[in-house]
């Protein structure tokens, strides 16, 4: 890696990227409002006062929805490369000193800022709810939900390079919801039969959910979850890198 690898990367890129997200009503609703609404719906249902680990069921659902919001936000931020390629913006960038890797880095950083915002919004709403867990657990679960959204920044980038569509998020939105069911984010894995439980453990959402909820429930296979998160990050990252290299190759 040389000093020019990330040439041109700067805070203005992130600032303008955030403004774009907030300006786009669909993305804003998708990444900031929907997770909150889902939390309001599921977090206050029957039996949500039951104890789970160090807190209650509402807290458990709060963390799950924060993970979901972070996922959506990070995926949308990554997948925006699809639209920018279609608009010829990636080509335009090649007429500037901005290094290709710096462009990708800006997308990952933006994804993390946006997913962090999403987690913060969900948790802020959570403090006004009956969610209950130790203070340290609030911080730990939020941080893990946020950091692990990296998997989905990579996923979004990969899909953004893979899919030609301008509306790539219209395909990815339902896809993420399915993956969330498959990975036990919306319904605890204990409700699944052993076949589906085994399948769930190799899907990309499983690891993130398990890890983020671990400080609350102190339960589950930590090592398996870590391996899941790292493996999917590497896989999606490698896929994105491969497509990216093909995309920027000079002909």
């Amino acid at each position: 890696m040389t000093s020019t690898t990330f040439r041109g990367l700067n805070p203005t890129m992130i600032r303008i990227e955030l403004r774009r997200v907030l300006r786009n009503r669909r993305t804003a609703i998708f990444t900031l409002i929907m997770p909150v609404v889902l939390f309001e719906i599921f977090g206050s249902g029957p039996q949500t006062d039951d104890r789970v680990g160090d807190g209650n069921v509402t807290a458990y659902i709060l963390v799950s929805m924060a993970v979901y919001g972070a996922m959506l936000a990070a995926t949308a931020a990554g997948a925006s490369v699809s639209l920018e390629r279609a608009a010829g913006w990636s080509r335009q960038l090649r007429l500037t000193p901005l290094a290709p890797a710096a462009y990708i880095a800006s997308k990952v950083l933006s994804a993390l800022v946006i997913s962090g915002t999403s987690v913060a919004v969900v948790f802020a709403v959570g403090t006004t709810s009956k969610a209950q867990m130790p203070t340290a657990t609030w911080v730990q679960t939020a941080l893990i939900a946020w950091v692990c959204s990296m998997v989905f920044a990579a996923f979004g980038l990969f899909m953004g390079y893979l899919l030609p569509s301008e509306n790539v998020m219209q395909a990815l939105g339902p896809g993420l919801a399915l993956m969330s069911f498959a990975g036990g984010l919306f319904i605890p894995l204990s409700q699944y039969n052993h076949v589906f439980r085994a399948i769930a453990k190799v899907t990309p959402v499983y690891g993130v959910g398990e890890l983020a909820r671990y400080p609350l429930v102190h339960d589950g296979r930590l090592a398996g979850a870590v391996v899941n998160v790292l493996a999917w990050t590497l896989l999606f990252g490698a896929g994105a890198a491969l497509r990216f290299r093909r995309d920027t190759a000079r002909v």
Partner: protein
Amino acid sequence: MTTTLTDAAIEIRGVTKRFGSVQAVNGIDLTVRRGEILAFLGPNGAGKTTTIDMVLGLSTPSSGTVSVLGRAPEQAVADGMISAVMQSGGLLKDLTVRETVELTASFFPRPHPVAEVLARAGIADIGERLVGKCSGGQQQRLRFAMALVPDPELVILDEPTTGMDVEGRREFWKAIREDAARGRTIVFATHYLDEADAYADRIILIRKGELVADGTSAEIKAMATGRLVRATFPGARLPALQAIPGVESVEVRGDSVLLRGRDSDAIARHLLTKTKATDLEITSQNLEEAFLALTGDTA
């Protein structure tokens, strides 16, 4: 940054570019001097954009070399020495005009002030407008503003006024001309002869990937004015055709004759009344035919 002591803004030596079985550029040699305003004139598919892409480092020649201000094209881009206004695309609709220029400026180490760039491109008054809500002409001036950000020595414009209305085109060229007066080298590709005529010091004609003419606007125009009278005339004799009043040049292709001249009426009247020529066809010479005239190629 080292200053290179070269008079050439662009040096193209023996450049070819092949895409599969298509020979897009077929051996071009060209030197563009600093401070020149050069029009790259040619029909669609002549190889203009392919050549421009190589000058911008967006693609590499199959053979030959391109250097920009004495360095490799990619280096010239990275150094902010060269920038371009592309034909279409390259804009994000959900950014404002000002944000687009701000973002572009953020990539360069020593960008020109955003406000000044907007003013020079004549879009200071629409800075807060979303790009998606701008007219084609305004978007093109925004692309020009983006090209001015690094204060480059050389700006390349690839068919910059395609799809613009007359007013938009005039406004656009006004901004370009004011800027060029400061001594920037400008190279623009166009298929409008009038545009090349009005704004360029020097015109390069390109056809089928080759340079077919290189001269001042007046020189090129002289080659391209007049009308073409085409007729079926078996057994026509060259000297007799050349003697027809008003005829400037003659070509015989089998049973067809092609007569070029400014007074096409007189030529036609002569052919119909004094010869056995039939099937007359009179066309004003557009650029394509100017090329044919210049290359002697049968289309």
